[in-house]
């Protein structure tokens, strides 16, 4: 319940400022200022935009299939928001610590596609339909490398529970599993134990250096999952007006935008949990200088919550910022290039990584 309220409110606030950040980042990249007029340095611009959006007329095209058109944004949003349910925000704070957390996450996020297809189809507009078709083709294609990367992590971690995956990357792993041991780069033969060193050394990207590549693949796929440039052909403003949400206006459109930014946050959270140590500090303990312990609290304590939430959220927001940076750097991929990238490059690499991860796992025990 607390997690629900927290994530809902957090998501709303985050979206408002993510839109602002996006406009600022794009502006800076293009040598502009971005919004400057509303509030200090334009800070309240998105709030004003939101107020305007809420007041707008809810236009439903006359020829639209209203049964599909109207609920579509809600379904998209619900699919994205439901994903937050299993995220362990801190060591002791999560909506649900389901054992099959990551499996559930992948499944529920796929529902997103259903909403998008409903929106595109129900709009009865060629642009919306094209956008929806592209979106479906794209998301289905990219779910494969995405899913395979998750599989890699699961193979390394031997669990589907997101909270447990995070614990494994932490200095507190021994609290839930006294016999657990982490070794540098996951290679037991090296004999350098890092269980109590923690920090970045126990993050999944370094527990198994293969995951560095895995993280890149995951990140690329997650961009496609959230329909972000350079994989934004479902929206492709220059070709499809607005893609699958062309016909939406007012609050429904706001919901779709909210979902898009929610999706960005969700995949960033996921990437953080799977590869970047979740709620753990990146500073390791060096001898008696217990940087890791100083920058994270005991699980269950208030300090643990605060530090955990801080690391988790700042890492996720950093990834969101990188997503924006990427968006305003690269041009949009053509549909065939998109498929090329997914099927000819990312998917084979992912399969290879799965194979290698299995071998790596053997080194870790």
């Amino acid at each position, binding site marked *: 319940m607390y997690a629900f309220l927290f994530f809902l409110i957090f998501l709303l606030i985050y979206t408002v400022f993510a839109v602002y950040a996006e406009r600022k980042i794009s502006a800076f990249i293009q*040598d502009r200022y971005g919004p400057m007029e509303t509030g200090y340095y334009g800070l309240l611009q998105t709030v004003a935009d939101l107020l305007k959006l809420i007041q707008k007329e809810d236009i439903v095209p006359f020829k639209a299939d209203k049964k599909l058109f109207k609920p579509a944004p809600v379904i998209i949003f619900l699919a994205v928001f439901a994903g937050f349910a299993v995220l362990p925000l801190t060591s002791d704070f999560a909506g649900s610590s389901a054992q099959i957390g990551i499996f559930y996450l992948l499944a529920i996020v796929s529902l997103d596609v259903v909403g998008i297809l409903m929106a595109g189809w129900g709009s009865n507009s060629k642009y919306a339909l094209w956008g929806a078709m592209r979106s479906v083709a794209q998301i289905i294609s990219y779910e494969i490398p995405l899913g395979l990367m998750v599989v890699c992590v699961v193979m390394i971690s031997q669990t589907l529970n997101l909270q447990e995956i995070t614990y494994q990357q932490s200095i507190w792993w021994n609290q839930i599993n006294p016999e657990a041991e982490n070794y540098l780069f996951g290679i037991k033969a090296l004999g350098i134990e890092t269980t109590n060193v923690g920090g970045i050394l126990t993050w999944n990207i370094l527990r198994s250096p293969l995951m560095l590549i895995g993280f890149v693949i995951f990140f690329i796929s997650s961009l496609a999952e959230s329909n972000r440039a350079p994989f934004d052909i479902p929206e492709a403003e220059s070709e499809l007006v607005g893609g699958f949400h062309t016909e939406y206006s007012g609050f429904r459109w706001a919901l779709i935008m909210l979902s898009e930014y929610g999706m960005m946050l969700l995949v960033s959270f996921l990437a953080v949990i799977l590869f970047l140590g979740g709620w753990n500090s990146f500073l390791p303990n060096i001898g008696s200088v217990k940087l890791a312990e100083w920058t994270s609290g005991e699980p269950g304590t208030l300090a643990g919550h605060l530090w955990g939430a801080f690391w988790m959220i700042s890492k996720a927001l950093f990834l969101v910022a990188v997503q924006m940076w*990427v968006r*305003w*750097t*690269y041009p949009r991929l053509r549909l065939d290039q998109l498929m090329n990238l997914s099927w000819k490059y990312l998917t084979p690499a992912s399969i290879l990584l799965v194979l290698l991860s299995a071998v790596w796992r053997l080194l870790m025990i």
Partner: protein
Amino acid sequence: MEAADDMKGYWRNIRTAVDTLKTGLKVTAKHMKDARTQRTAIVPEADNYFEKQNAIFTVQYPKEKLPVPDHGRYKLHNEIDDCIVCDKCAKVCPVDCIDIIPLRAVEEIGKTSDGTPRRIYAEKFNIDMAKCCFCGLCTTVCPTECLTMTDEYDFSAYDFEEHNVPFANMTPLEILQKKKELEEFNKQKEAAKALKREEVVPEEKAASGAKPKVGAAKPAFKPRVPGAKPKVVGKPQIPAKKEGEEPSGEESQSKPKPVFKPRVPGAKPKVVVKPEMSPGKAAEEESGQEPKSKPKPVVRPKVQPKKQESEESNETSDKAPRPVIKPKVPGAKPKVVVKPKVPTKKVAEEPKEQEAKSKPRPVMKPKVQQKKDEANQSESKTELPKKAARPVIKPKIKPKNTDSDKEE
């Protein structure tokens, strides 16, 4: 083999992709970093003008402005106290957006800051910025440099009317007053002239004799300039007569020259006819008659008339009207000079510059021409060639004057 090549291409693609993606991110990261500062405004003359500057380019307009020259191509400003209402700016304006109504003063009303005497009030001096093309011609011709372009370029308005900027600063009451003064003054002058005329008539005859000698072209004017003052004398008198005879409109008087010529020959009745026509200014005749446009000289007379009258009235008192004309004439432009003097304020200076504009007004000229032609013919046909040269100038003058006259 093929497969091997394909594989090479495959790895090369990956390498290229990684390289280019990295480069791209670096470029945008650099821009983000540079966005902490703002580009400085530099003039095109600066050495580093073409150097890439990576800082923010945006100028937050109403709050920040790029520096502009003090006298760029922006909003016009007229320092009305320095304006001698010469009408040059209005005549040179290619879009006719300057609207001036002059109001002659009975005496010099002061000096501009550069020492030019002011003799005309601006009853109305409007510049319609909505029509203005900001070519700057008017500022170039302005003899007192009172008309300038300012550095103000942001003067949008909700109503076109607001773009019609009035510069004249006379109140309606003042205008009325000055008008009355002028009227009285004119009356007095006419009375004086009437007196003079009686005395001068004999002289006039002598003058007429002189004119034929001068030569055909515009004889009347030229002769005067060169030195044949006697003729001039005659003219002033003539206008006076006309006025008396043709009270109907001052405009008719304006074309005094035609009147003069006819009179000189002796056929005064002709003169009367012309004035009437000129007022009408049948536009229809213009097109065909443009070639004849040279007759425009006639037009000048119209314009001048008012001024002349005033001047003449002054002169009449002095009885030395001619001197005035001569001084103006430097020598080469003698003919032109004459006109300027008459108009004194407006006409005299404008002729040269206004030549280009003069053509449009042909309408007026035709009328004039006919009259003139008649007059000329009566006098001497040889005059036509001479007239041709002048025509340009004259036509210009007429339009404005006629307009202003009508309004008055």
